[in-house]
């Protein structure tokens, strides 16, 4: 059984936010507008966190940490959902059943990474955004939670094609599978099967530079970061 994971090389990441933009486009993330965004209602399944600037002039550095759903192996969000609207599928992807979610937001308060977002208003796609809505991804109604899905629609497509052609999915097809990875101009991101010891993500996750966020909490995230030099 596959176990999907991601590796992000913080030494390569330039903080350009192409990943954030690509994810929003791919997943038809609704438009919040400047007023709502200022109130803290904007939805970014994938977000780039900025760490403090360190070093002294002229050798200044700031680290950018692209943060998406960690698809934890022991997810605090799945634990608390009263109706099992959020669940971890058998390949390790944590998903939300938009039809079942009652909008209690316990999962959102339980997630220590803050990756879960709520639809405070019915979603809006003004003007040209309407035409850009991705037909492969269901749009979410008001009052439910949404978050990163590891582009599971693309994953299913690739798996289906491989099965049709009677072969296994190759690592090369997976590395830049997700929209965020595909958009990254610095080639800082990798996706793949952590169960396959030869895959890029499996090898990189064993690197001495590899770490995860909030490791002490025991959530066992499947998104690994490679420390900057």
């Amino acid at each position, binding site marked *: 059984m596959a176990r999907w994971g991601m590796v992000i090389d913080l030494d390569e990441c330039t903080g350009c936010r192409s990943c954030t933009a690509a994810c929003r486009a791919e997943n038809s993330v609704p438009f919040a507008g400047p007023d709502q965004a200022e109130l803290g209602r*904007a939805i970014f399944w994938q977000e780039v966190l900025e760490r403090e600037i360190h070093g002294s002039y002229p050798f200044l550095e700031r680290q950018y940490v692209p943060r998406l759903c960690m698809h934890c192996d022991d997810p605090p969000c799945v634990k*608390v959902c*009263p109706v099992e609207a959020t669940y971890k599928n058998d390949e390790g992807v944590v998903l939300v059943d938009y039809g*079942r979610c*009652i909008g209690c937001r316990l999962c959102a308060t*339980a997630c*220590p990474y803050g990756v879960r977002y709520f*639809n405070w*208003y019915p979603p809006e796609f003004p003007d040209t955004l309407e035409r850009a809505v991705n037909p492969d991804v269901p749009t979410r109604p008001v009052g439910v939670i949404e978050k990163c899905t590891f582009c599971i629609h693309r994953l299913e497509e690739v798996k289906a094609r491989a099965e049709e052609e009677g072969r296994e999915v190759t690592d090369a097809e997976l590395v830049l599978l997700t929209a965020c990875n595909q958009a990254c101009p610095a080639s800082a991101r990798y996706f793949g099967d952590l169960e396959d010891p030869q895959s890029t993500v499996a090898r990189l996750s064993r690197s001495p530079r590899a770490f995860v966020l909030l490791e002490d909490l025991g959530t066992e995230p499947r998104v690994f970061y490679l420390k900057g030099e």
Partner: protein
Amino acid sequence: MLRPEITQTQSEDEALLLAPLTRTSRGFMLLVGLLATVALVGIFAYIRQLSRGLGVSGMNRPVYWGVYIVNFVFFIGLAHSGTFISAILRLVGAGWRTPLARAAEAITVFSVPFGAGSILIDLGRIDRMFNVFFYGRYASALLWDVTSVSLYLLSSIVFFYFALLPDLAHARDQLTEVPQWQHEMYRILALGWRDHPEQYRRLEKVLDGMAVFMTLLVVTVHTVVAFVFSMTLQPVWHTAVLGPFFLVGAVFSGSGAVVIAMAILRRVFRLENILTWKHFDYMRQLLIALSLTWMYFMITEHLTIFYGREIPEMQVFFQRFTGAYAPLFWAMLALCFLVPFPILLTVGKRSIGWMVVAGLMINVGMWLERYIVVLPTLTRPHLLNELAIGTYTPTWTELSITAASFAGLILLYALFTRFFPIVPIWERSEEVEAYLHEEEGE
């Protein structure tokens, strides 16, 4: 049909207790009008929220919960002292509680629905609320909440109703000059109670049994409410002390409310001989014990956090002590302990007025305490980046729904006192005492 013999003083008391059921005063109409208006504004605000989405509230990311959850915890907490007085004190045989029991239990019966209602109001998809029954997962603390609060509501209503039965029969039999519909109401609700000694003995047995059940339930309910917070990994929420702390706070705020209710009822219905100074003194002692226990938990919690100096927890700690929530935090400490505690020890000994002041402060302070538990942690979650720059300002929608919830509680309470005796008549009757002791003598 047997009826307990009534002595002279008993019949005076009884007349006093049945008097409100026979007339509507102008003050009452005014009160009902005012409360109904406030409630209607809140209902309008909710309908607007329902049609537009929860965006009309002040909640955001990372502050996913706000005033509605605070209200939920507060109202469920308020209910606890009613059960404490009518069930727990019943089990330990504290006879002084008898005249207060119904007044206190009425607070329970009318505030639990607003607690449960506050959660429903907070749901993003209330149209899917039955999913909790269809797909409920017992691994989730929220489902333990749903179960225990539902059980609490149901058993409180049943307990309350059973204890009311003999008095309903009394009203049916004694009140001949009330409107036909009112008389019918008593007749139907009295379920054919016939004042038979055997009925009283059975009633006592049932109430004793239910008192045990409700005692266990009341400990469970508020602990489980606390679990919804303490079972997440969020800083300062994730602590073992939260369960007991919430429980103590609940009985504390509820007891303050009972004092207020007692004082008002005593004044409005002229019950000076029934709700005596002795009762206020017992409540005063109870409040002193609860104040000290509450303060003990406050100190323990914050001292432990401060000594450990864990970074995420200290962020929340300073939010409370010196940051955005400092004014509310210090106001809470003043209103819950620093001002009412000295009052309870000194002037409260002699004056019901001061007891009411203390009770009011404690309730306002405890609402603030729930606010302080919920908000600072949400504004300073784990990942210290843009996520952690959280702020929250409740909107008029949330505040008017809060006001409407309080107005609704008081309205239901007032309506209850208009049509039903607020002090149990049958529990004061010497004849009924005799029936109950007959069996013990055998």
